């Protein structure tokens, strides 16, 4: 196995968001693991031994942070992004229920979250019609301008 073949596998893994790749061919074993925080995937290669079985391939998809609604082609998903810098809150107060959950229908004027900036609680509107398919920001954590907050399947 050449270095550029390994590089090609790593690129394919990144493009398809795969977390793990393992392969055996003629006794040559390759195991590549990638985690979101780690820029460098770890690659383990073992040298071939004599009389080895043919290639066996397994690939494992990266585990998502929460359970999104699957099977959506990329073009069908829009995002609600942060229009300001601040702290993201899912609910109007710590005891209240979140403004929206996965599966909730939203209109342009639906308030989906709060971003607190300079002690002001700003209600953020969906500004699109659709269904929430994923929550991408963490409650009471800072968000920056343009950061994806929710994934929405538009109607």
């Amino acid at each position, binding site marked *: 196995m050449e270095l550029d073949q390994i590089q090609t596998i790593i690129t394919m893994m990144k493009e398809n968001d795969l977390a793990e790749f393992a392969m055996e061919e003629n006794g040559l074993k390759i195991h590549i693991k990638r985690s979101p925080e780690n820029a460098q995937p770890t690659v383990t290669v073992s040298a071939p031994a004599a009389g080895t079985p043919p290639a066996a391939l397994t690939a494992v998809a990266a585990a998502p942070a929460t359970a999104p609604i699957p099977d959506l082609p990329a073009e069908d998903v829009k995002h609600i992004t942060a229009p300001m*810098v601040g702290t993201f809150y899912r609910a109007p107060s710590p005891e209240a229920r979140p403004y929206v959950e996965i599966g909730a229908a939203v209109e342009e004027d639906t308030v989906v979250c709060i971003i607190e900036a300079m002690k002001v609680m700003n209600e953020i509107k969906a500004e699109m019609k659709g269904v929430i398919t994923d929550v991408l920001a963490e409650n009471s954590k800072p968000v*920056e301008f343009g950061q994806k907050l929710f994934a929405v399947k538009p109607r």
Partner: protein
Amino acid sequence: MFDKILIANRGEIAVRIIRACKELGIRTVAVYSKGDTDCLHVQLADEAICIGEAPSKESYLKIDRIISAAEVGDVEAIHPGYGFLAENAHFAEVCEGCNIKFIGPPSSVIKAMGDKVAARDAMRKAGVPVVPGSDGLVDSEGDALKIARKTGYPVIVKAAGGGGGCGMRVAHNDPSLVTGYHMARAEAERAFGNSAVYIEKYIENPRHIEFQILADRKGNMVHLGERDCSLQRRHQKLLEESPSPALTNDLRKKMGKMAIKAAQAVKYVNAGTVEFLLNPDGEFYFIEMNTRVQVEHPVTEEVTGIDIVEEQLRIAAGEELGYSQKDVQFTKAAIECRINAEDPFNNFQSSPGRIEFLHVPGGHGVRVDTHVYGGYVIPPHYDSLVAKLICYGRDRRMAMDRMSRALDEFIIRGIKTTLPLHQLILKDPNFRRGRYGTSFIDRLLIDRQPLVSSAKK
């Protein structure tokens, strides 16, 4: 000393500030626009927060987003760099109100010096010589004509609300004054949102001499010598050097004392620069004070050995200077060339784009302050400064020879830069003799057309 600060800027000055912070053990938060995700300051800071779309007014000029980022980043202070909000008194006020230390002078001082007419007034009262001209704002064409005739042509109409070459018009006679007056007002309105103008006598081909000031919160103040910034094009500096070839030791002492007087008159704190015009007769006049760290600060750093950004951080954190004027030593001569992404042989047309190949000069007496790297794409939204090349040595001759050598080594491919223009300047016999004023560049480009054409190849 601060634990964590935010840098409200981008590019080379943000890198400069982050470097000083790292050396002092201060953690850094960078802010960036969507056009700057690949900028070096974002990579070097400990944390980075996106604050808006690429255009400056959607990001680096958004006070609310910068303050939000400061709160989210939990910082104690903000360094504004130069440009953007660095001399925005309102921004400094907001920081003060939010209990975030603004690394610079108090907002009241920024306001006092930001109003160029009020600044002239304050200087006159303090006994600092100012350029003769209008006593205050000029409100009408009629007044403009009266004052211009009284002062004596040529005169210059200048915007009261800002500098940097904007809202300025020179007039040699009544008709050009009338047009100049109206055009300056219109330009000032667009650039600063304030069309107020004043009139000064126009000093032909002056030298622009500025003095670096450092003052702590206890009132201790020193000057770090002068920088000669006479080499300009359309009021934009291209090259700066220290010491100025035009100053005798006597004149330096006199001007230094005046610079301190000027800064003391407004109770200045932190780093600032007092600007004078020097006419060929040896008379000098205050024109304005810059209440921020300047682009050309490295020149003074190499001459004196004092780290100006570090001093800014120390002063803002409440430390005393710890030294007095007699402790400031001027041991070197230094020159800085501003390398811009512009084509000097095609009317300085902007040249943003990808740097395909970069080779930065090095060696004894060479310093390069830059945010660019091979493969970096210079965005079109911000200023065209690519790198600052600073060369220094025991005297001016050594600094110039080093600069020539370093300019020859410097390779930037993929964009047009002003490198070849600087090579021409350093070879010019008048420049080498220290004989130049603010009209030098225009004359160089016209007179040396044959040299310019061969330099293009």
